[in-house]
């Protein structure tokens, strides 16, 4: 039995009465947005000394700081269970941040819901379930642009230029694409809002090494357009090679921070996380 009597899991397996496919599982820290206020200086996007956990649960992050500036790629790496994805989710408003703050483009957005952060200019690509599988590629992109009221055909062209394969497959259901292509759709969908910052949660999870290299190339290409990218990666070595800034997290704390090159050169980091 769960604490909330409405969320007991009895009988939810009976497919003739309940439909749990695609059901919402997101647990935003705030159901309603609180106030924001202007702040001066600092990086373009920063999760500043964040401490917090899911719901009323124990703290998972401890004074964790993640930041990315314009034109940069920032990468979060670390061993399994280090809180990499959690740190990114905290920046996106899916974690109860009990102390610390999240600031985007000179505005404190700690009290905003994830949806409102999207409106403020955050583009987020979750690790899994990040496309509408039953909809065509083009419809996926259209849904990405849902909040826009202006003409978004230009943006769609840009996405197709970036990921040419999607142009060929635009009328195919996204669920029928290969793993790498799905990730392209997912990134493309996030780009459709014309975000000010792009956040990728393990974009290369579960794809082959060749596809992974290609995805990294695309990500660099996106970054060259001036869009700051914050990324969680399992493949620490490749990720740090393209990173302007790297964060190594251990047990929810910043263990090492530096440029990608510095971290790759750091013998401690090499020994503990990069396999020598």
């Amino acid at each position, binding site marked *: 039995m769960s604490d*909330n009597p*409405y*969320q*007991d*899991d*009895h*009988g*939810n397996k*009976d*497919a*003739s*009465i*309940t*439909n*749990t*496919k*695609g*059901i*919402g*599982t*997101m647990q935003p820290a705030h*159901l309603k947005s609180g106030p924001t206020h202007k702040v001066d200086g600092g990086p373009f996007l920063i999760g500043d000394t964040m401490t917090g956990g899911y719901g009323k649960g124990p703290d998972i992050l401890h004074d964790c700081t993640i930041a990315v500036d314009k034109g940069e790629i920032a990468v979060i790496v670390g061993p399994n269970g280090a809180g990499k994805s959690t740190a990114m989710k905290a920046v996106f408003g899916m974690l109860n941040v009990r102390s610390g703050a999240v600031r985007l483009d000179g505005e404190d957005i700690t009290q905003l819901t*994830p*949806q409102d952060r*999207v*409106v403020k200019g955050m583009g*987020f690509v*979750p690790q899994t*379930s*990040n*496309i*509408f*599988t*039953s*909809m065509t590629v083009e*419809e996926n992109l*259209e*849904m*990405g642009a*849902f*909040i826009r009221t202006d003409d978004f055909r230009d943006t769609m062209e840009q996405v197709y230029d970036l990921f040419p394969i999607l142009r060929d497959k635009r009328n195919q259901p996204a669920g029928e694409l290969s793993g790498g292509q799905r990730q392209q759709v997912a990134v493309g*969908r996030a780009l459709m*809002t014309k975000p000010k910052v792009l956040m990728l949660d393990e974009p290369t999870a579960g794809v082959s090494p060749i596809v992974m290299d290609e995805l990294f190339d695309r990500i660099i290409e996106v970054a060259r357009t001036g869009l700051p990218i914050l990324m969680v990666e399992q493949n620490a070595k490749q990720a740090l090679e393209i990173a302007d800034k790297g964060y190594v997290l251990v047990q929810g704390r910043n263990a090492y921070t530096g440029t990608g090159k510095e971290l790759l050169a750091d013998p401690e980091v090499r020994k503990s996380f990069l396999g020598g």
Partner: protein
Amino acid sequence: MDLLNALVALTNYVIVPGLSYGSQLALGALGVTLIYGILRFSNFAHGDTMAFGAMVTILLTWLFQSAGLSAGPLPTALLALPFGILGTIALMLLTDRTVYRFYRQQKAKPVIFVMVSLGVMFIMNGLVRFIIGPGDQRFTDGERFVISARTFKKLTGLDEGLAIKTTEALTVVTAVIVVAVLFWFLNKTRTGKSMRAYSDNEDLALLSGINPERVVMYTWMIVAALATIAGVLYGLDKSFKPFTYFQLLLPIFASAIVGGLGNPIGAIAGGFIIAFSEVTITYAWKKVLTYGLPESLAPDGLVQLLSTDYKFAVSFAILIVVLLFKPTGLFKGKAV
């Protein structure tokens, strides 16, 4: 042997009734499937929603009839239908506001919604009986037949007649229009696509800036319209009785599941599959066979596979068979 007459008899007793009943079931199943796909539960109150919509339409039809309004050869109920839809939409939105919304805010599990819909079912059932009574109501007027058996015989010179009731023709035509509009809406409009997106992946829809409350509102409105249309067409074709509508829930669920819950195309296909199996298995084939077979083979009995009272049994037997072989339904459920 007389194939032409056999064909006419088959059309008259099996194909025409099957088509119109199938259309009614398809419209009902579309409503169930949309709720299942988007709101993620099976709505036990759907039969009673149909009854409510039909009731509002009937009351207005009587009002129009007494005011001398008529739609010529077509039933007056067609004039009242838009208002009936509006009334049902109002009730659905009110129900959502006062009942269902709370559970959405609580992020309640689907099975809780199912139980809530049981409560709504009781209330709506009581409401309809309270207002119009539990009895049979007829409200069909206008021309009775598009083509009557006698005219058909005269025209063709055949022994067998073919009668097509106005209500049957109307049912099929309306169903085709409604389905076409619905599919256009779901596949081509921004709102329709946002509904499909919400059904596909709730979290991602939220992140894309789709407002769930909006999606839910449109869903209830569409479902109210579908239920009212299905209810009125069924009432015109047969008759209106609250309890019959409640029982329609069974073949409607069966249709939606056979087709694949959550899939609109499946709902339509399921509606016709269920309707035709009910009609063919409970129809006495003697007449058709007598015409269609050489005289020596002509049957003595009625050649009725099962008595008409077993029509529910038929829909469920089909349902079980389909589920055994294709557990997600014929059209792979869940793809609103």
